[in-house]
């Protein structure tokens, strides 16, 4: 599953495609760890993601931790219904801005 990134100002956008699961672990991690140190806002664009599993939820928590934990600014955007459902079941809206 390919992961693409783009940076605009201090905002890093990570575009996730297809099944977001453990196989994306390293790539997803590299996507934000390799980013410029000036980044302090993160957007995960899920428009092309079909599904995510619990290890993907774990990866999102890792990103949140990397982005400053409680003070992290991470938005998860353009989720399809399945992806949104999984995020809702896990009550991730308490930790992330889901739009």
């Amino acid at each position: 599953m390919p992961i693409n990134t783009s940076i605009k100002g201090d905002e890093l956008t990570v575009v996730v495609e297809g099944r977001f699961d453990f196989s994306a672990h390293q790539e997803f991690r590299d996507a934000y760890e390799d980013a410029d140190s000036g980044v302090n806002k993160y957007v995960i664009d899920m428009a092309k993601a079909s599904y995510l599993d619990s290890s993907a939820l774990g990866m999102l928590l890792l990103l949140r931790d990397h982005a400053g934990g409680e003070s992290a600014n991470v938005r998860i955007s353009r989720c399809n219904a399945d992806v949104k459902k999984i995020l809702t079941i896990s009550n991730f809206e308490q930790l992330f801005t889901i739009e």
Partner: protein
Amino acid sequence: MDETPLHILVADDNQSDRMILCAIVKKMGHSVCEAADGNEAINQFLEHKPDIILLDVIMPNLNGQQAAKSIKALAGEDMVPIIFLTSLQEASDLATCLESGGDDFISKPYNKIILQAKINAFSRMLKMHNTLQDQRDVIRENNEHMRHEQQVARAVYDNVAHSGCLDLPNIKHMLSPFSIFNGDVLLAARKPSGSIHILLGDFTGHGLPAAIGAMPLAEIFYGMTAKGFFMVDILREINIKLKKILPVGYFCCTCMVNLSFRRQEIEVWMGGLPDFGLYRKETGEIERIKSNHLPLGVLSSQAFDADTATFRFIPGDKLYMWSDGIIEARNTEGELFGDERLFAIFDEPDSELFFDNILKNVNQFAGENGRDDDTTLLELSMVDESEIAKVDIDLSSGAVTGPTDWNMVYTLRDETLKTFNPLPVMLNILNDVPALRNLSGQLYTLMAELFSNAFEHGVLGLSSDLKKTADGFAEYYRLRNIAMESLKDTFVKFDFDLEPLDKGGKLTIVVEDSGEGFKYDNNNFNLKSEDNSAYCGRGIPLIYSLCDSLIYFGKGNKVQVCLSWKTQLEE
């Protein structure tokens, strides 16, 4: 080019041909051994373990083809390339050579360049074969070692994670291991009061990481449940522990349930699991219970939210709990089983079939494809407490002698009443008295009833009548929350007095609360429910049945119970 020197067996009955061939091979840098017929070739093979064999087809005693068969059989898994030396020209003869186990042939008279090329080719193949074989052996050995370790660990894990009281007659369950370890945890235990705690957990990932987290989780669950802690205290403790030990990104989706037989209700905390189904016998309908929390191990203890939801649960009602493996079972087209298919199963009129139908439908759907997650399913039914065995309290620990003559007063005020469960602390003290340890189940129920009367009906002033209907049930908890917000100058005071008697002892408990009290009749507690609902709602017949005497004082906000016992004679 590959120039590793090899050990080569040359077998030819014609001495001059053999010498020529040996000379060529030696010149290439290889060492040789010789044989003059098939039998000798086999013996040389056994003795010298050559890397490659050059074998003449037509030889006395045992010909080349027969020798090749024997040598290949003796070599077993080892690769021993055999190149036939032949003056035969017929294609069928050459084919027979290969069928008997030869790997190649070379025609007489020998062309040195071709011979060298063939030996080199087989040398490369040999090297590759040996590397593969070595790697396979290492992998096989590691794998066996790991499997053995996992089997032992699995046994330990099963003892910890799947023990408890899952075998109670009102619980049906199914766990399917995805790998040797299962990311799912299913725990059940009885509280000293007879209530049941159930925990279904689904750790991120499978195998070792999941199994390791399950250990402390199970320990806390069983340990605290046996001591009579409330569900929310146990969840807080597990959350802190998991947050501390699990790396970021690992967590446990969890649902914990407290089933109270006497109150006929279930209390549920749910984080990160798909909707559960609550079947109502009265209406035949299925109600959804939703996760409203983050999984355990994500939030810090300050941010952790232990709010629970309480549902009326009367005999015939059933709760269905599952891990996401059920919903995420896939068919051969990669389609998910899904929530809708799952809830459609409850359209069946006979609730006895639900459990089996869920399993049957999921298996049929996933078919050969199997399941790609851990799947756990549990059905919890409400039954009359008499259908369930009595709680088996572990008396194996604790001193034989203990305090036998003491008094203690313990007063809980506003803030403490809101958040703290005093029962484990008080029971701990009472359990230091050896004779009371034998009564701890009875004692817990007694204390729990006295405390809930003093707090819920006394301090909070709630009427137990409300809980008789489903609507009133919700109303009861709404009013309870409101009352909790405005506690001021309230208290519940426990006074324990333990005195030794000849060949036994006596415990007197006086409980007083700041509430308004109620109308009582000290001479008539054992009334049937229809005669006096205030008694029944307060569990007074139950309290009465557990102690020797029960007396209310004043306006009904102070009660005294006595419990006495005879010391059992040494056997």
